């Protein structure tokens, strides 16, 4: 693959420009792994249904100086932004002067990752950055690690509950050339803290974009974290978005992933439950049409006893779209009294759409409660007839039923401005045929 040489050049330039950077070794390990493993193909079990190698045929430009301005940022802000800490990433790099941090530094620390790796937070970064590679040990994750540069470190301090949520806007500037972004972030919710974080993605321009993202979140004792991912990018925007959350103290995590539009979208939602008594809720909704492809891989690794996790992913596949759900639950020998539930429900709207769903349970403890279930169905004909028999046209009846199907996931978005926003996006997405 000729892109390997391209990445090699880019990588060497990056290392030369930042020789004493404390992250340089990490990048080197990443690049060695990438060179060895390459881009995953369908022969890798975890990538059986998602062909990312096609994303590597393009001449990406890793633009150093993007011309994105505050005016561009204004067009993509999420509702509730006036009350939010807004972190702007352009082509994968955190841009401080486009970002707005409203919380005080005694509540919330936001720093460029390289800076955090050197100063006061050095040990934290050293302890936690790239723990994800133990789980995401493939070439694509390694590629992100090879290019850690311009990442961000977000730290909610002990006992703090910042009133302003964190919004991460990922802007890909594909106005001139195909854009490649590899954002990397490390987030720490310290003991007794509270964090709400939302990520959204916008490609500007008509060229292709590819966002290879890794976010690592560390959750300590008695912390509470809500994480929302809203994917509603253009049809030429593809991404591999890995969210790796480690609950290392007894804590609570609630995530919702919404995928409406996009090209090839692969989400890895990994939860490592590394303390007794953790509680985790994962929700996901994908409403695919056109040629969209969305692959949600979830992993819950139960390492310690008495953890509870619940997963509900729902989706619709129309036209020639493809949906994949792979829900892996591991229960390690120490993780007695684990409660782990998983459910995946799908509606297939077109004969040419495809849904692949697979639960994957690996249980090495004996006293556990695990359940999983998946369904693939059609729209309920009886319900359709009932609505139409009241004068509601077929298309509107379909939208009503699909909205209803989506509602129990949308309801899991706790902040009202985001919930109504997503609700409206879904309505528009479904109503436009």
């Amino acid at each position: 693959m000729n892109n390997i040489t391209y990445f090699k050049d880019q990588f060497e330039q990056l290392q030369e420009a930042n020789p004493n950077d404390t992250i340089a070794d990490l990048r080197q390990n990443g690049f060695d792994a990438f060179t060895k493993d390459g881009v995953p193909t369908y022969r890798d079990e975890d990538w059986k249904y998602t062909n990312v190698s096609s994303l590597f045929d393009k001449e990406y430009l890793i633009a150093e100086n993007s011309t994105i301005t505050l005016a561009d940022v204004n067009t993509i802000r999420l509702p509730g932004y006036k009350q939010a800490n807004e972190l702007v990433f352009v082509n994968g790099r955190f841009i401080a002067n486009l970002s707005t941090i409203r919380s005080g530094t005694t509540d919330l620390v936001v720093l460029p990752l390289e800076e955090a790796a050197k100063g006061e937070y050095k040990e934290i970064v050293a302890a936690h950055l790239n723990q994800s590679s133990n789980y995401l040990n493939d070439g694509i994750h390694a590629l992100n690690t090879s290019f850690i540069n311009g990442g961000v470190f977000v730290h909610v301090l002990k006992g703090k509950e910042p009133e302003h949520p964190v919004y991460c806007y990922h802007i890909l500037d594909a106005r001139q050339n195909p854009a490649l972004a590899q954002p990397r972030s490390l987030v720490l919710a310290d003991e007794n803290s509270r964090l709400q974080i939302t990520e959204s993605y916008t490609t500007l321009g008509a060229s292709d974009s590819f966002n290879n993202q890794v976010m690592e979140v560390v959750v300590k004792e008695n912390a509470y974290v809500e994480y929302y991912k809203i994917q509603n990018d253009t049809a030429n925007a593809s991404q591999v978005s890995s969210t790796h959350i480690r609950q290392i103290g007894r804590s609570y995590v609630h995530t919702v992933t919404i995928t409406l539009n996009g090209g090839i979208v692969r989400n890895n939602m990994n939860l490592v439950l590394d303390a007794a008594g953790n509680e985790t809720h994962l929700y996901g909704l994908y409403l695919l049409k056109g040629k969209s492809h969305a692959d949600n891989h979830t992993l819950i690794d139960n390492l310690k006893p008495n953890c509870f996790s619940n997963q509900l992913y729902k989706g619709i596949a129309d036209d020639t779209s493809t949906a994949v759900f792979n829900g892996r639950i591991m229960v390690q020998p120490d993780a007695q009294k684990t409660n782990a539930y998983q459910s995946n429900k799908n509606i297939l709207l077109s004969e040419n759409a495809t849904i692949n769903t697979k639960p994957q349970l690996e249980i090495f403890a004996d006293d556990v409660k695990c359940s999983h279930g998946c369904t693939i169905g059609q729209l309920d004909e009886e319900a359709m007839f009932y609505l139409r028999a009241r004068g509601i046209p077929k298309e509107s009846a379909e939208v009503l039923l699909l909205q209803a199907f989506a509602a129990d996931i949308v309801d899991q978005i706790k902040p009202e401005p985001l919930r109504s926003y997503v609700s409206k996006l879904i309505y528009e997405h479904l109503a436009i045929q």
Partner: protein
Amino acid sequence: MLSVKNIHANIDGREILKGINLDIKPGEVHAIMGPNGSGKSTLASVLAGREEYEVTEGAVSFLGKDLLELSTEDRAREGLFLAFQYPVEIPGVSTTNFIKAAVNEKRKYLGQEPLDAVAFLKMMKEKMALVEIDQRLLSRSINEGFSGGEKKRNEVFQMAMLEPKLAIMDETDSGLDIDALRIVANGINKLRSPDRAILLITHYQRLLDYIQPDYVHVLYNGRIVKSGTKELALELEEKGYDFITDEVDLAANQ
């Protein structure tokens, strides 16, 4: 208003309706009675436009239009209403929003402005009183977790809201205790009017104690085998269906 001529209909290739004729004029109440499995619900479904049923012969005109040419939703918007024998539960769709959508779709079809929130609420209140339905039911998802009686009451409520020209009530009385039956029947009676026709499908004559029909038809084995006035219902009550069906079976075997 409704003229059904020699309707034959199949499901999965099996003929269920074998030549139905029926004429209904504005203001009339017709009752169709008959044993289970005789094709009563099939007739209702064919008239409402359920797609699984294939009409192989015959014609239906409704208010001068070829009914069979209209989609299900257009039939409803033209003024045909079907109260379902088994109302469908639809989790996640609020009853109020659904009824509002239905009312406004009909208005749009008729070239009227949509009702605003205030006018809609006023109408709701009025009709709720008419059929004695609780506000709390209407804020829930459509029929979800409703009792049998609540579902039937919701059907009559929707009829009141949509003000149809022809209402087909498929066993709206079945599964109701005597109090619920009285409430539902009262509701239907209040909705009787000189320009509205009602087709009551029922298995039992007891509904007809409350709602006096102008005509009674007996449907058996896909055909209307006897028609008469309300006295026919009383005769059926007294003698059972056998006195008619035996006769029909005998004739068929000869």
